[in-house]
């Protein structure tokens, strides 16, 4: 006898494939409409980037590294501050309660053909009341959803692919608020407005009349790049930002990272349910490694030195660091990195903590200076990295990775060639 349950199950299994004729008809119509609308570029057959990457497995590590570097940069998105302010815009933005935006991040690396590094996009929802929700997509697939609500003491990332979640505990509401501000576009705008900038000529973005400003220099992104340019475009009339562009280079342009923040929806109504972490019951917890500190930085430097027989990264700018780690891993392990990709990606993440920590220090204007281009593990007394901890005191990591404090005078002696 056929049961209702069987009938339901069989109906669910029904499967037809659309014919090639239908495919052609629909795609042709869409492409035609796109061309006619002239609002976007004519559709092109998109290469399956992920498949290309899988075929060319040698690029996997670099691709994974690019994803990590983008994540690290987003965590540490900071601008240095000084000088002028553009008062009215800042005031207007400060009064915004809710905002949604779209962020695209791309890395170009010499030696890796364009298109082989995954696309990275984030949709972020920011609410003064409920906190932040950020959905990160890699090659259009949801990589993680991050929830951060300082008032409720919530800071959690949910990763559907791995069926895992990472929860940060032990942070005060103020600390969480500071972390949340890094994703707050109002804070980004405020910082850009108070940085030395030049005004750009009027332009149009997606048919909108805009005026822009541009900030340049290594300090723009808190020392993460050798050089960086950030542009802010504001709609004439509404005075709301419509686009932020950030481009940073390292190694004399061998690596380049660009970020575009656009599709802003200012003062949009947001459902509070968006900000409540949705963790399925079968997901397991994973350790969170986003918090860089002195200890994780030393561990990162130690791991790098182990790879290179005592040499440290020449520079802690994140992109340069990532490039050097990738090169060293390839040099040391060759094709083995393909077999043990997870292990080496983990090493890379750990080493990058040194760069993340350095970026944090630079962003906080702690007078951080790094001497990895000249100091190795064979120079135990030499200053490898130092930063200011109080008016007349510096924290120092030495060539043997021991740590200590020094006054400004003592530091001057230590740093003498």
């Amino acid at each position, binding site marked *: 006898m056929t049961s209702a349950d069987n009938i339901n199950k069989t109906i669910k299994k029904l499967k037809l*494939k659309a014919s090639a004729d*239908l495919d052609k008809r629909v795609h042709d*119509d869409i492409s035609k409409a796109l061309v006619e609308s002239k*609002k976007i570029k004519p559709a092109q057959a998109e290469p399956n980037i992920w498949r290309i990457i899988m075929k060319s497995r040698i690029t996997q590590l670099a691709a994974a590294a690019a994803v990590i570097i983008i994540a690290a940069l987003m965590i540490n998105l900071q601008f240095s501050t000084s000088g002028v302010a553009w008062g009215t815009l800042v005031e207007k933005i400060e009064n915004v309660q809710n905002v949604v935006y779209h962020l695209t991040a791309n890395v170009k690396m010499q030696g890796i053909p364009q298109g082989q590094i995954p696309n990275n996009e984030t949709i972020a929802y920011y609410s003064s009341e409920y906190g932040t929700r950020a959905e990160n997509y890699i090659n259009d697939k949801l990589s993680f959803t991050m929830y951060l609500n300082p008032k409720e003491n919530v800071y959690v990332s949910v990763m559907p692919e791995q069926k895992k979640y990472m929860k940060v505990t032990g942070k005060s509401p103020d600390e969480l608020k500071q972390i949340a501000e890094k994703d707050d576009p109002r804070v980004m705008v405020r910082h850009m407005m108070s940085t030395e900038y030049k005004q750009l000529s009027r332009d149009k973005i997606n048919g909108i009349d805009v005026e822009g400003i541009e900030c340049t220099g290594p300090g723009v992104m808190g020392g993460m790049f050798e050089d960086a340019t950030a542009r802010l475009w504001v709609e004439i009339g509404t005075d709301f930002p419509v686009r932020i562009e950030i481009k940073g280079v390292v190694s004399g342009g061998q690596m380049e990272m660009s970020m575009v923040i656009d599709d802003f929806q200012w003062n949009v109504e947001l459902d509070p349910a968006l900000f409540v972490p949705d963790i399925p019951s079968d997901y397991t917890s994973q350790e969170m490694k986003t918090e860089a500190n002195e200890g994780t930085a030393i561990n990162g430097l130690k791991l790098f030195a182990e790879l290179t027989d005592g040499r440290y990264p020449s520079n802690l700018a994140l992109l340069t660091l990532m490039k050097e780690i990738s090169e060293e891993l390839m040099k040391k392990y060759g094709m083995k990195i393909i077999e043990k990709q997870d292990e080496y990606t983990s090493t890379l993440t750990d080493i990058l903590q040194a760069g993340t920590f350095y970026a944090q220090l630079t962003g906080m204007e702690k007078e951080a200076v790094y001497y990895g281009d000249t100091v190795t593990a064979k120079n135990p007394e030499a200053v490898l990295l130092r930063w200011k901890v109080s008016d007349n005191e510096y924290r120092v990591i030495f060539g043997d990775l021991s740590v200590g404090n020094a006054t400004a005078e003592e530091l001057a002696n230590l740093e003498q060639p």
Partner: protein
Amino acid sequence: MLEDKLLIWKFNSGRREALHNIYEKYKDNLVTLAATLLTDVAVAEDVVHDVFIGFIASADKFRLSGSLKGYLSTCVANGARNRNKAGHIRRHVDIKDIDPPASEANNPATKAMFGEEFGRLTWALEQLPYEQREVMVLRSYCNMKFTAIAAQQNVSIHTAQGRYRYAMDKLRSLMNSEAEK
């Protein structure tokens, strides 16, 4: 496959190229849905094509929200119902007048559509009044809630649930009687 939320975001942000991805993601489901409702693959594909033409034409006028799959399934079901009403599809026959095939092999139309494994089911579905078949397919294939189905058919939820029960009873009866042959 692309995540729906990103597709919706891209679509709502004016990136109409997302339509290509939306079509690729759901085309097989939508053709299956339409073919099950209309029992004709060629007409089913026309319905899906029409849905996307409508989608393209109205792309600038509305914003997507909620479930992408649900929205498209509703569009296809509406299109299929219109086709059915317009008489493109042969009218259903009363169950008592049905002369079931001696075996699945004698039912080339449904076998050609879904293969032998599903021949008996699709033949039985074909015998249902259109409204009952629609409730059955939307509920079982699309996992649609009775409230949504009722709204779509412009009937009360009790009517929708009743149609589902009648449809299920008839399907069981038809499939069991055919299996005994």
